[in-house]
């Protein structure tokens, strides 16, 4: 089966600062992969390389068997690879409705916008109440909800989600993971970057562990927890990267 996303020997960084070294990773259609590791090991860089936000200095990125290395991020989006970035992931200077409109106009066309908006607001009644507010004035949880609403209505083929739970209350994190599970059941593949590992492990089939910009372990979720925890907190476990 052609993987929906494949990174082949990718090295990447920011200018002269290198963050990823020779990383291989693939996500099959419908699969959910958790990308774990301590702070600053290159998880976010990997997520960005996977959706075209940064261009690898070496190696290649393939989507659906097509080489997309060096292609602008909007083409990744049009190929069905969505990216929910870390931190603020909505346009602070646009209202809630405009945020949604912006993405629905692109994905659903002029006629589809109204229906998509209705669908989003019926799924997230809270957002409907915040409709005319500037997204920058929403709380962190509401902002995250807004960016999820965008994705949920569109149902991409692959969602790369970067630290969705960052700074959010547990109850909201639970809700978000509930939404992710629903996306999964609808056939969307997931690549989840996460610090709160228990949630990620509960959702995903496979774990990829990153340290210092390289993949140090990869395997099924079952029984991975102890290893992952040990890895992050003790820096002692680990094997050679299976590349």
């Amino acid at each position, binding site marked *: 089966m052609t993987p929906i996303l494949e990174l082949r020997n990718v090295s990447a960084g920011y200018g002269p*600062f290198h963050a990823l070294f020779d990383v291989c990773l693939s996500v099959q259609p419908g699969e959910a992969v958790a990308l774990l590791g301590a702070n600053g090991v290159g998880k976010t860089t990997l997520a960005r390389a996977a959706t075209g936000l940064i261009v690898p200095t070496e190696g290649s990125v393939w989507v659906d068997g097509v080489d997309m290395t060096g292609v602008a991020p*909007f083409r990744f989006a049009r190929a069905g690879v969505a990216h929910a970035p870390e931190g*603020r992931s909505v*346009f602070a200077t*646009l209202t809630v409705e405009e945020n949604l409109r912006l993405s629905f*106009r*692109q994905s659903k066309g002029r006629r589809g916008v109204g229906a998509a908006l209705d669908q989003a607001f019926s799924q997230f009644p809270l957002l409907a109440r915040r409709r005319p507010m500037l997204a920058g004035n929403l709380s962190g949880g509401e902002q995250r909800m807004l960016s999820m609403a965008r994705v949920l209505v569109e149902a991409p083929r692959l969602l790369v989600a970067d630290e969705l739970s960052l700074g959010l209350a547990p109850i909201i994190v639970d809700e978000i993971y509930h939404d992710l599970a629903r996306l999964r059941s609808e056939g969307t593949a997931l690549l989840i970057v996460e610090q709160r590992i228990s949630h990620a492990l509960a959702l995903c089939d496979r774990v990829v562990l990153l340290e210092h910009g390289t993949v140090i372990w990869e395997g099924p979720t079952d029984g991975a927890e102890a290893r992952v925890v040990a890895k992050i907190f003790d820096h002692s476990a680990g094997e050679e990267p299976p590349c």
Partner: protein
Amino acid sequence: MIFASALGEDLARALLQGMPPGAVYALIAIGFVLAYKTSGVFNLAFGAQAYVSAALYFQARQEWDWGILPALLVSVFLLAPALGLILERLIFRHLRTSSSVAKLVVAIGLTVAIPSLFDVVVGFSPVAGQTPTGIIPGGANVFYQPFGVYAFSRDELMAMGLAVVAMLGLAALFRFSAIGLQMRAVVESPRMTELNGIQADRVSAFSWALSSVFAGLAGVLIAPRFNTLAAPDFFNLVVVAIAAAAVGRLMSLPRALAGGLGLGVFIALANTFLPAWAEAHPILAPIQENVAPAVPFLVLFALLVLWPAVRTTKEQADPLSGVDPPPPSLASRERSSGLTVATRVFAVVFFLTVGFVVFTRADVNWLFLITQSVILSTIFLSITVITGLAGQISLCQGTFAAIGGFTVFQLSDRYGTSALVAALIGAVVASACGALLSLPIRRLGGVWVAIATLAFAFFFDAVMVKLPWVGGGGTSLLQGTRVPRPTIGPWDLGDDKAFLVLALVVFVITSLAVIQIREGTIGRTLRALRGSELASQSIGISPARSRVLAFALSGFIAGIGGAMLSMQQENVNYTLNFSPFAALFWLVLVVSLGSRTVEGAAQAGAAYALFEAIVLRGAVFGWILRSADRIPGIFPISPKWRFIIFGLGTIQFARHPEGLVEFNTRRAHRRTEALLARLRRPGAAPPPEPDVPEAKEVVP
């Protein structure tokens, strides 16, 4: 009551009278807001863009006898968007991650370069008194008098109508259309817009094309206001428009319209009612005469200082800005070596030779230009201090210099003070003005300092220059602002060569002072602040105090230089030497060539005075071929090329803030040293060129 009805009529007339100029301000303000909203660039070059379309329209109509429609189409709907697209594609797209100050400097460079480039390419030279015409037949001559107290010309009605239509249309575009939404999204974060499947580059190109069309349209519409088309007038209008736009925090179109109209009406009211007031108090008469044109600048300055909301309208930081590689850091500093000694020896020999030739062979004209270049170098050292050391963009250095010049004029004219003493007093006054000016603006961020100083420069230009105790008022119109050459004991410096010696002495003393300051506590403090304000504060440096000091020092140096320039020309020649637009070119030159070092200032001074004479007039070929008759036929090249060359030179500021010449010198040094090293150790590998040093960490 007769009085009441007269008052009412005055009021009504003033209200109506203020509308047409108000509409003009509003048009530019709306365009400026449009450009700012859709590109995030504080586009001072907006006026230059407007000028280009207005000039092409004028040329097509007057010189080429085109009809109104084709002239309009070509100038507004072809040239303007093309220019916008070129600016976006070649310049601003690459400056996305640069600081807003860097973008501002580039925009200032373009303000200087674009009009000259157009003039040279099209061969445009406006004839004084040839008033441009509008876009409707008989626009200036057919009047309508709807309310019985004031008659609007067709042009005026057109401008007013268009301001309202444009505001409504653009507001609708932003509110209802997909592209309007996308333009706003791209300004906040091009990357996040791309994640939504939208091609950000295309959207941003559209933004530039749209705002450029608007600039062009505004330019053509407002051109009939001027007797003669001139780029500085358009620049002036942009600064007025920024005041109007500031009312809407640079973001709101309806408020920009209201701000523009409000300014127009306010000025008309002042013009209507102030004369009576001034008649009662004659001492206020000169202020009254000039207060109206200064209103916008006072409003702008007051808004910046008193209304934090204007300057805290920070662009939302792009959450994905970390994705783009950081701008390259500076080429590492050259460490002293035998090579530095060699260059210094060469420099001494070079200057001795030049000096010998100048003092023995040069005629009056060359002596004049060389003296001027030395004095300007002194003035430019003030930019070295404020921009190079303190990292602030000040656009009122010309004003500080003018204060020095006017002080000498006043003191010697009224009290017969010795010119040199007067020059020192002038420098102190300019320094005090610098410190006073910097107090209210000490907490403003980079771009806003530039705008506040610009407002101050225009305020000085509009009001102070015309006051009897500053620029000499009416008498100076007849006699000029005469300034004597100084005498020191037995030496009469009226002689050109003696004065050149004085200018050199002043330059050398100032240079040494600047070097000492740069290497001393103040320079180190300012360098720390420029490097990181946050870190400077964390070791106890007060940013506000340091900036006030930098402004005071810079004012002092500019003041002394301005006094010298006035003495050299034996006249202040304010408009020619020190007007805000003229001083823009100073900044452009220094920033292009090197704002960090004394050498940069000296080169900028030489470029200002001598580039035209030596290069553009082809004198250098005359010397090489040993005959002025054999200078190739393409010379003289238009003097406007220096505006073009150095204006476009600012584009590199974003990448190499130390200046082009500085950068090249360093690179050349490094290469030479590498070569020397290879020659010394044959077979050894050359040391790697640290062109891109280790960048700061990026937290992924």
